[in-house]
């Protein structure tokens, strides 16, 4: 499974990467991007991701813009928003933009595992 992890915080990318590794994904099978612009470049260049995990608030291009950009090019790839934005309005906005699932920080590894399992099996 190829995963793209997008977050402006190095620590968060490493935490998510660690959980993903616990799921059995090898280090070489996931890429990291620090903002939406870098993520979109990687997405276009590699075009082989099975899941995108993205933060919302990031410089240059935020997560919501990234989701909309990816959705214009790819309608099926599962996207999970992992963010501190826990308001109902934000969740609805993200779902409308095209995310498949939503996780509010701080989260437990179990939650991410469950959501990823659900997306991969679904």
């Amino acid at each position, binding site marked *: 499974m190829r995963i793209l992890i997008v977050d402006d915080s*190095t620590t968060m990318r490493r935490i998510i990467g660690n959980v993903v590794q616990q799921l059995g994904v090898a280090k070489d099978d996931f890429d990291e991007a620090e903002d939406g612009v870098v993520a979109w470049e990687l997405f276009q260049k590699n075009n082989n991701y099975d899941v995108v995990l993205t933060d919302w*608030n990031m410089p240059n291009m935020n997560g919501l813009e990234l989701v909309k950009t990816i959705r214009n090019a790819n309608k099926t790839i599962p996207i999970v928003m992992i963010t*501190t934005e826990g308001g109902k309005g934000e969740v609805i906005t993200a779902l409308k933009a095209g995310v498949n699932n939503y996780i509010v920080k701080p989260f437990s590894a179990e939650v991410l595992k469950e959501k990823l399992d659900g997306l991969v099996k679904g």
Partner: protein
Amino acid sequence: MSMSQAEIEALMNGPDLTSEEDVELDMPNIEDIEANDSEEDFDESILDGIDGITDNEEIQEKEDGNSKEKDESIDKSKYPLPVENEHKVVNQLNEVAEDNEQKASQIFDVLSFILDENSSIQQDNQDINEFLEKQVELLESLSEKFPNVSVFNENLGLVKKAIESSSSLSSKLNSENSKIFEAMELMQYHDINRQKIERVMSVIRKLNIYLNGIFEDDTGKENIQIAKQISGDSSDSMGDDDLEALISEFAK
């Protein structure tokens, strides 16, 4: 522990401590507290064995000195601090946020190193365990064939104990790994706190724009002459008599 607004208000509206009786009723333990605070029976040599203790009296003196310095600075219009990069609030907050992120990454490096080492120990332990299992098989077979040679049986017991220790080590490593994963999860708060700092920075930036706007001077009068002494400012103002006397003096 912080107090709620209701508790603060209740405290402020509480019994009026004007009479001596009330004061005595409300402060029965002051003597006890003072007795506890007394350092007469305290063995100060204990302090010598504790690292990192600084003399409070020295700190107090320094604080008093700083306080005087600040007061003088305020009188001389040196305070608030000059608008330099190192004193700008948003710059300082940004520095804290970046430093926080950097240190969190370093902590993560340490935790990752421990995880990798644990994994390596786990692998070595597994190899040892496999070897010990083979030794058990060998010693069991030898014990059966040579029941009169007690050393085989004794060694079999020792190897089985070693296998138990190996299992215990493996289980301890697993518990340690799960605690490290827990610590890694908790490190999300570094990111959450950074975002809280960024929110404060954003508010300050907006406030800065607002204050600049509201204090903006559109009159075009950059150097308005201002009066240095206006009647009523202080007692140093000259009265009519003094004024006349001074004029007369100059007229001579």
